[in-house]
């Protein structure tokens, strides 16, 4: 079992800076933007993106945390995951929401996240920012902002580690041997 590093801390920092610029370009600033991170690592990426945005633009951007486990379509097939508190500090009605997650794979997490958002209001627009797109979509979902595209085999595991949760910034592909 050999780990193959895809991104190191500098790569992640640069990708998040570029994605922040793309968000600003596309939305012409930060007005009406709400950054919504999907638990767990999406939450930390969302905070980093928001701090980039306010640094580049000079005004604060609201950040929310979203737990989507209660909206999954595959409850029975998963080990009981911990439900974490959703924190929605602003009304998202009519806002431009940027959903943030670490890896885009089947698209099911993002679908669940859109359902969850709906329970809090009707955003004017929902965009998707992803650190790593590994392909193998099972739903018609694509990201608006991508840190890096990485072709993977379905049985490979993409491991994202972030300083906030794991003490190190790194993305690696891990082949799990049975």
């Amino acid at each position, binding site marked *: 079992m050999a780990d193959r590093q895809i991104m190191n801390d500098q790569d992640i920092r640069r990708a998040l800076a570029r994605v922040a610029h793309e968000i600003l370009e596309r939305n012409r600033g930060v007005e009406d933007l709400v950054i919504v991170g999907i638990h767990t690592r999406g939450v930390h990426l969302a905070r980093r993106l928001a701090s980039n945005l306010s640094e580049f633009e000079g005004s604060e951007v609201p950040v929310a945390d979203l737990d989507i*486990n209660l909206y999954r379509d595959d409850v029975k097939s998963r080990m*009981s995951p911990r439900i974490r508190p959703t924190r929605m500090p602003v009304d998202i009605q009519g806002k431009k929401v940027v959903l943030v997650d670490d890896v885009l794979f089947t698209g099911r997490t993002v679908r669940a996240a859109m359902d969850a958002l709906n329970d809090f209001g009707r955003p004017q627009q929902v965009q998707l920012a992803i650190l790593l797109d590994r392909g193998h979509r099972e739903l018609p979902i694509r990201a608006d902002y991508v840190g890096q595209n990485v072709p993977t085999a379905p049985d490979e595991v993409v491991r994202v580690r972030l300083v906030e949760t794991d003490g190190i910034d790194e993305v690696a592909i891990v082949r799990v041997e049975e």
Partner: protein
Amino acid sequence: MSLLNAIETEAQPQIEAAGVRKRRRHVLDLDDFSQQEILEVLESAEGMSEVLHRDIKKVPALRGRVVVTLFYEASTRTRISFEEAGKILSADVINMSASGSSTEKGESLLNTGLTIQAMGVDIIVIRHPHSGAPYLLAQHLDRVGIINAGDGIHAHPTQALLDLYTVREKLGRLEGLKVVIVGDVLHSRVARSNIWGFTKMGAQVVLCGPSTLLPLDMLRPRGDDDENDPLASVQVETNLDRALEGADVVMALRLQAERQNGGFLPSMREYIRRWQVTEARLSRANPEALVMHPGPMNEGIEISSTLAHGGRSVIERQVTNGVAIRMALLYHLSAGGE
């Protein structure tokens, strides 16, 4: 042998194989919960609590699951709170009580359980006046998860979990706290499950009440393994003032009038004078001590009215948190693979 371990069970052992814990099928008591699993339930309940405070209290997590509440004993808060929990999670909840059912025609508990299972129900929440009744169902039904909502004087695990949750929410921790449980411990399933819960989480439990209402046999050393026996740390103190010294949590238990035929008390007046939890007595506890009661309360008997509705009382909060805990447990039993 004490009631705490009198009922031998085949409840699912927590098998740690390759870091994967076997999925839990039943919640019968807290004795087979590890500290880690209790913590997971408490943390999930925090997430559930957020859902409870939304404008739209509805998430699709348990869509298509069927939960039956099977109550052979009166209940307001437990039954309604399970029903609300199930409905917020989008499960279909069917309430059944013994009166008006085939129980009145003499159908046995086991046959009622088999009938419910045959209808494709996923979870049965059962309350029964006989200790051990939920274990009977758990042993004989192989396709239904059983949650014990109170069995006789034996266990009430969901109440204990909501009590742990409430204390952790208010005081920020459980470890090292002094928890005094006052009153009719002998007949209290709430006390029994709370003893498991609080000791497993590292709190010090002190039981207090008339010696006739304390299960003294429960605290007798039970084997060679006392160091790992959480019950070995439980203390007993019949003097309430001494028990309350430095307490962080004071839990008054309902004096169960329906179970008092055995001449346990000389008189109600004496009970009130010596064991009622009052503001004056509470001055011996820590200044931030919480006052709890599992309900329903006999105000003016085991607890004074001013205290029950005063600033230190978290009794209403216990009820609110009960819904979040039951949501977490219903989810906990439904999520996870084969």
